């Protein structure tokens, strides 16, 4: 195994350090999008189709225009000429992928309930909302396609010009004959079908946009609650034909994203074009109901997974087939979401042959796209649920079936059957430690006692071992997957004359704590106080280069760029210090912020003196530029592959169907940790988000395509009362992909926890003959499963 060890020796990286982001957030000083004070701004509100599928007839705005404060109303047809192109989809996964035009305001036909058909411009947010009530749209309702299998049948085609609802078929089967042989010769052949319900990402801050034009100067500033100001700038320029150099995009404090703010949305472009038309600022803040219908949703897949195994339960082949719901249109990276899981349906198990196929379809529902984990939670769910089924078939424990199949540690870097190279891994210790934390044998004994006593409160134990690929990503790999952009990240490190440090990063935080962690990295390298490091981000005028934050990429890609930029600055500072000390640069040590001559520790110069000398430039080495600054753009050579094992214990009430999560243990390995406090925080939140898919959350649509859970009263984002304290531990297997030895942890909890909980639910009910429970495992769903199995009624 090719471990790198941590390059950090400054005593700062690896410690629990409180966040520098907190004071502003704790006192109300932080400015989220709706907090911005923008004098003279007009407000917009969108008129949205109440029908999932309808032809748009005449639109009568006369009552709206007569409403106090309403300035104008525009229909989709009115603005059609404003768009240089449709809303962008940056991931055409196949050359023949169907991608019908997706205009910011629909023209002719609305294709989901929530599709915007007109916009009201008014002097206040209340007046804009009043105006929406006064717009009368003559809709001709059409039958809606709400089920993916129905969609795939093409019984009713949504986008007539495409001729089909099938967006693409994509296959990854490196060795078809090998796969056929594996299943032909299998002693055990497990076939499982699972459904991933639609989820609503629901960051606590909804989206919002404010556009400030400078009509005479030609500049425009787009403020948006987005994860991707840099990507948005390019895409908005292309969609509106705005010169990119005249456009500045700012993400103010962003109140969570979870993938749903990794997009280019209609409202951003509508505000831009209306700011142009009216010559004044235009703004919009999303309501929670809009956030449920007009912001992307996640998951929404049907999966079939087959495992071939020998008599001992050793896997000999894995075959997965997906039917994925793209919703009504293709949002920014939606087609690629299944592909982000496509390589991982064999999990962290050593399998010789592999096959993955995916068909994606349009439906008349809200578009889907990346939601925390994006493809990897779905893959992990399928393999981890199926491994439990295999354990039953073979007659061994859930722990034993995993241990028999883990990729052996000596095989790393591991050439996966799907064509990836897993960078580093050591899986068994995470399972062992998780069992220890959970008192696995004790829990099993308790379960047996309850069963023997005939208790109706059933105990269930569920394991989920996972590996994920994150740190998006090598640009060449993305190119091979037809992704429309690169996967690099940029960082600049600037030592100011007084030895304070400015860091500019292209990563765009929205709760993760980049400012704290980036300060720690730089401070550790430079030997300065982390409080003397300022991290600048999220504004394209300050940070012009970036690929932003998603896919657990910030640290392993953006952090690495930062580490390298700091090393470059130290290299230059060393040359200046050598000049000052009249020594050879190679003869200098640098530690604790001071350069010393090896063997002559009294000959030293502090970094502060070097920084000031670089600023005055009075006596620099011949040919050296003044100042201490370096910029690095880093494009990684591989993904990183975090892993771990989670164990959930649930109690299922046979009589009510209620499932309660009563214990949870997680042992994760994200390589070297910069700030363990932040790692734990990411895991806590991630785990709960995954548990929520298992037990509570679902975007429930009726047969007409109406969302029945379009607010936080009906969509069950968990509160503190449903959640429990989790037991966390970790192992450290550094990544050889980057010099810091780091992986990612933003999505790991969500990826791991859903199958752990559902395996526990099924484990509790298995004596009744139940082998699957559809998510979320609500009391009603569980009761129906019990009744269908002939259990108590």
């Amino acid at each position: 195994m090719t471990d790198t060890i941590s390059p950090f020796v400054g005593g700062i990286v690896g410690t629990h350090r409180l966040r520098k982001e907190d004071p502003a957030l704790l006192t109300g000083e932080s400015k989220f999008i709706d907090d911005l004070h923008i004098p003279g701004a007009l407000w917009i509100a969108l008129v949205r189709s109440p029908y999932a599928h309808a032809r748009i007839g005449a639109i009568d705005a006369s009552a709206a225009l007569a409403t106090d404060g309403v300035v104008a109303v525009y229909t989709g047809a009115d603005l059609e000429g404003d768009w240089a192109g449709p809303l962008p989809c940056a991931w055409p996964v196949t050359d023949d992928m169907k991608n019908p035009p997706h205009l910011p305001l629909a023209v002719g036909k609305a294709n989901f309930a929530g599709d915007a058909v007109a916009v009201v411009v008014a002097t206040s947010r209340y007046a804009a909302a009043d105006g929406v009530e006064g717009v009368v749209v003559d809709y001709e309702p059409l039958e809606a396609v709400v089920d993916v299998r129905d969609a795939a049948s093409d019984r009713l085609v949504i986008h007539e010009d495409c001729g089909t609802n099938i967006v693409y078929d994509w296959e990854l089967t490196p060795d078809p004959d090998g796969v056929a042989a594996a299943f032909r010769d299998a002693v055990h052949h497990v076939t499982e079908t699972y459904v991933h319900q639609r989820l609503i990402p629901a960051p606590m801050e909804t989206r919002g946009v404010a556009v400030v034009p400078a009509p005479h100067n030609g500049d425009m500033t787009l403020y948006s609650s987005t994860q991707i100001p840099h990507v948005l700038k390019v895409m908005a320029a292309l969609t509106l034909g705005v010169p990119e150099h005249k456009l500045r995009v700012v993400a103010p404090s962003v109140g969570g994203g979870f993938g749903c703010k990794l997009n280019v949305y209609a409202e951003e472009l509508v505000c831009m074009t209306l700011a142009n038309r009216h010559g004044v600022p235009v703004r919009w803040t999303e309501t929670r109901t809009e956030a449920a219908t007009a912001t992307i949703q996640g998951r929404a897949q049907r999966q079939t997974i087959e495992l071939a195994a020998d008599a001992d339960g050793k896997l000999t082949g894995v075959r997965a087939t997906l039917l994925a719901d793209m919703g009504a249109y293709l949002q920014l990276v939606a087609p690629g979401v299944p592909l982000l899981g496509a390589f991982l349906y064999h999990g962290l198990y050593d399998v010789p042959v592999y096959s993955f196929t995916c068909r994606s379809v349009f439906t008349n529902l809200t578009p889907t796209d990346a939601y925390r984990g994006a493809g990897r939670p779905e893959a992990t769910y399928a393999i981890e649920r199926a491994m439990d089924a295999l354990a039953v078939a073979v007659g061994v424990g859930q722990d034993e079936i995993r241990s028999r199949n883990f990729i052996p540690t000596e095989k790393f870097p591991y050439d996966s059957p799907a064509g990836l190279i897993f960078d580093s891994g050591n899986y068994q210790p995470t399972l062992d430690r998780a069992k220890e934390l959970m008192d696995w044998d004790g829990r099993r004994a308790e379960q047996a006692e309850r069963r023997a006593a005939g208790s109706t409160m059933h105990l269930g134990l569920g394991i989920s071992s996972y590996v994920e690929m994150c740190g998006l990503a090598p640009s060449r790999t993305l190119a091979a997957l037809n992704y429309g952009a690169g996967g690099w990240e940029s960082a600049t490190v600037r030592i100011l004359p007084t030895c304070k440090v400015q860091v500019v990063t292209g990563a765009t935080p929205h709760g993760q704590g980049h400012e704290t962690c980036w300060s720690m990295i730089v401070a550790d390298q430079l030997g300065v106080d982390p409080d003397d490091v300022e991290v600048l981000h999220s504004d394209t005028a300050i940070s012009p280069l970036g690929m932003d934050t998603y896919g657990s990429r910030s640290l392993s890609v953006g952090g690495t760029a930062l580490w390298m930029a700091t090393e470059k600055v130290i290299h230059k500072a060393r040359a200046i210090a050598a000049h000052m000390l009249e020594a050879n640069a190679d003869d200098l040590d640098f530690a604790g912020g001071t350069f010393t001559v090896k063997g002559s520790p009294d000959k030293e110069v502090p970094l502060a003196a070097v920084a000031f000398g670089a600023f005055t430039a009075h006596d620099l080495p011949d040919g050296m530029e003044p100042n201490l600054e370096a910029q690095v753009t880093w494009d990684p050579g591989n993904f990183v592959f975090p892993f771990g094992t989670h164990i959930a214990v649930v109690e299922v009430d046979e009589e009510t169907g209620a499932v309660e999560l009563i214990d949870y243990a997680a042992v994760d390995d994200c390589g070297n940790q910069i700030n363990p406090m932040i790692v734990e925080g990411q895991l806590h939140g991630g785990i709960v988000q995954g548990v929520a898919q298992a037990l509570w959350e679902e975007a429930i649509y009726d047969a007409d395509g109406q969302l029945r859970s379009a607010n936080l009263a009906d969509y069950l984002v968990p509160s503190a009362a449903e959640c429990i304290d989790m037991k966390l531990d970790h192992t450290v297997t550094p990544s050889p992909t980057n010099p810091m030895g780091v992986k990612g942890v933003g999505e790991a909890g969500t990826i791991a926890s859903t199958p752990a909980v559902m395996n526990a639910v099924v484990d509790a009910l298995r004596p009744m003959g139940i082998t699957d429970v559809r998510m979320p495992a609500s009391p009603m769903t569980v009761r129906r499963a019990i009744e269908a199995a002939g259990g108590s009624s």
Partner: protein
Amino acid sequence: MEVSVTVNGTRRSADVEPRTLLVHYLRDDLGLTGTNIGCDTSSCGACTVLVDGRSAKSCTLLAAQVDGAEVTTIEGLATADGLHPMQQAFHECHALQCGYCTPGMVMAAISLVDEYDDLDAAGVRVGLEGNLCRCTGYQNIVRAVLAASE
């Protein structure tokens, strides 16, 4: 209509539409944007403030209903000497990530601690049921509230 409220110890007033929600009055008319809005259904608690010392969801009250009352918002907690003990506990326990729910969560927690003498973890969890957080999984919030209650 004219609405006057003592906010964070200072008498403030503004002329507003009768239908103005307290949260919009605080944010848009008084410029106190620390109180956030997270939903349309009084479900999330991001807008929690103290009205006459007790927590209230300011999206669920009209400004007119609190005319003459004392309101404390997140901006009214910290002093020149530093953060309020509840804010400090949230900081020390890493009880916030994106920070959007935080002002409401802190206000609700202050009210909860004020109301109950012997809070345990279960009591905190039930007591904060009306405040949603999407980032933290609540574990560190519970820890922070217990720490501040001691």
